[in-house]
């Protein structure tokens, strides 16, 4: 109860401070557009723009474009990451070669691939998908291979003495035993993918939330920029906390690993 109260109060305080900064003439209005109560010139507010965008469907459409891309790119990354991770864990020579290559690739921010992606795939959906996928694939690969490599030998030994081997062992023991690593891999991979898509869309200008941001920037409509940021924050927080963090916690509780 007291927690909720404090949070509400905190948000009110922040909003009020912003509103005051916006209303004093310390900075031009466009630097701090008002959140709730319009200032004289222009008369826009962040809330107004947000509600407007929601009603006209502009924001919802952009969100669905972004999430659609994210889903596809992230799925590709997960499939590739699990495959590479498995090969690296399974074959020493893949580890020696691909594994070492992946460590280097992982250190290249995915947005750096953008110039190449445009030349290879043209400016548009494909290039952004590429950025998203490449942003998440390497982390996923590293985490999956770490997971597969570090299956506690007690599980492997137990399964082997009970008669399991080969694919049965991989399916019933190696894969589930790597789930904790894979899930934290998913979480980090998601974080990178989320960052990659925003950067990609800001550049790539082909619809999506990032494109709306860029539009807000070009038009110097900081009210639009802020309202899109709010949307991004909410979506990000929900996915991060409700999906990945929850998954991670559930698993670590179930696996008997401390949080």
């Amino acid at each position: 109860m007291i927690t909720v109260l404090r949070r509400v109060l905190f948000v009110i305080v922040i909003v009020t401070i912003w509103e005051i900064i916006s209303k004093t003439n310390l900075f031009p209005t466009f630097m701090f557009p008002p959140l709730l109560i319009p200032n004289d010139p222009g008369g826009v507010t962040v809330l107004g723009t947000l509600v407007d965008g929601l009603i006209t469907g502009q924001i919802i459409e952009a969100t669905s474009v972004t999430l659609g891309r994210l889903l596809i790119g992230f799925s590709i990354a997960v499939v590739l990451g699990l495959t590479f991770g498995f090969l690296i864990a399974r074959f020493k020579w893949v580890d020696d070669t691909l594994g070492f290559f992946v460590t280097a690739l992982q250190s290249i921010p995915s947005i750096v691939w953008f110039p190449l992606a445009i030349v290879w795939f043209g400016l548009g959906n494909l290039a952004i998908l590429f950025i998203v996928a490449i942003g998440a694939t390497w982390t996923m690969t590293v985490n999956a291979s770490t997971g597969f490599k570090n299956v506690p030998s007690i599980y492997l030994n137990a399964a082997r003495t009970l008669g399991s081997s080969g694919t049965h062992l991989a399916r019933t023991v190696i894969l589930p035993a790597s789930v904790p690593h894979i899930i934290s891999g998913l979480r980090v991979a998601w974080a990178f993918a989320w960052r990659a898509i925003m950067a990609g869309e800001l550049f790539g200008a082909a619809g999506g939330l990032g494109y709306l941001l860029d539009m807000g920037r070009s038009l110097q409509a900081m009210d639009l920029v802020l309202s899109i940021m709010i949307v991004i924050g909410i979506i990000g927080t929900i996915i991060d906390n409700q999906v990945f963090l929850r998954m991670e916690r559930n698993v670590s509780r179930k696996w008997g690993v401390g949080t």
Partner: protein
Amino acid sequence: GGGSEENADEVRIGYFPNFTHITTVVALENGYFQEEFGEDINIETSTFPDGSAFMEAMSTQDFDIGTVGPSPATTTYQRNPEHEIIAGAVNGGAVLATREGAGIESVEDLDGMSVAIPTIGSTQDIMLRETLSEVGLDVEDSDGTVSMLPQAPADTSTLFLQDDVDAAATQEPWGVYLENQADADILLDEEEFAWGTASTTTVVTARNAFTEGNPDLTEDYLRAHIRAIEFIEENQQEAVEIFIDHIEDIAGNELDYEETMEASDRLNPTYEINEEVLQEMATISYEAEYMQSDDIEGLVNRAFLEAALEEE
């Protein structure tokens, strides 16, 4: 994409929503392209914020033909000689604007200042370098003292207002906007900046695969282009109105008529190609290490223009 390599049933045209691309806008709006191509040919258009994006899309075969500054067409030519300049479009129309309060009275005063350009390797980039070299200055990238900031023209007036840059090499209508919205001064107008009225600001560029596969359509395009130039020369006011309507259609904001008229006075539509200036630009690009050499053999192809003019 596709479908346009040979006997295309579609022509994809690219241009910028800038006044220096008015020839393309007028040819589109007045239906010249459609008339010349015939009813069977479908027309697709795309717009680009700067020359880099334009050439990028042309290289990835996202469109076939359109208007662009000569420098992007030149600098990308060496690494990827898959396009050619087939006609001129607009001369002039580029200015060097300075921020009020930056204290810039002459080109020499740009020493230590920052100047915005549309993009690296853009025509204004090259023009700025040419102008600076006349007074013995150079940009930081070439160990000079003038800092050069590639920024979308749309963002430039913000940068002026925030004192983030001191000057801008830009093309119309942005020069007029800077004057009116950001109280900028025009240090060098279209007649003084770089090669002055002889400066080639936009040219018609096409992918080789398109021109080779569709020589007839290419000539059709140029005929429409020439008609548009003639129309603009004869009906300046009407052309400006067409341009304002067009921009409102694609960007949703209405330009000020007076301002745009002012901008239109600063440029000179022409289908002529000034190869001398193109070669000088290539040399500057080479010196800026944008290119490996200043050899642009094969970039300019007058054949289609000549054919189109003959049939006039």
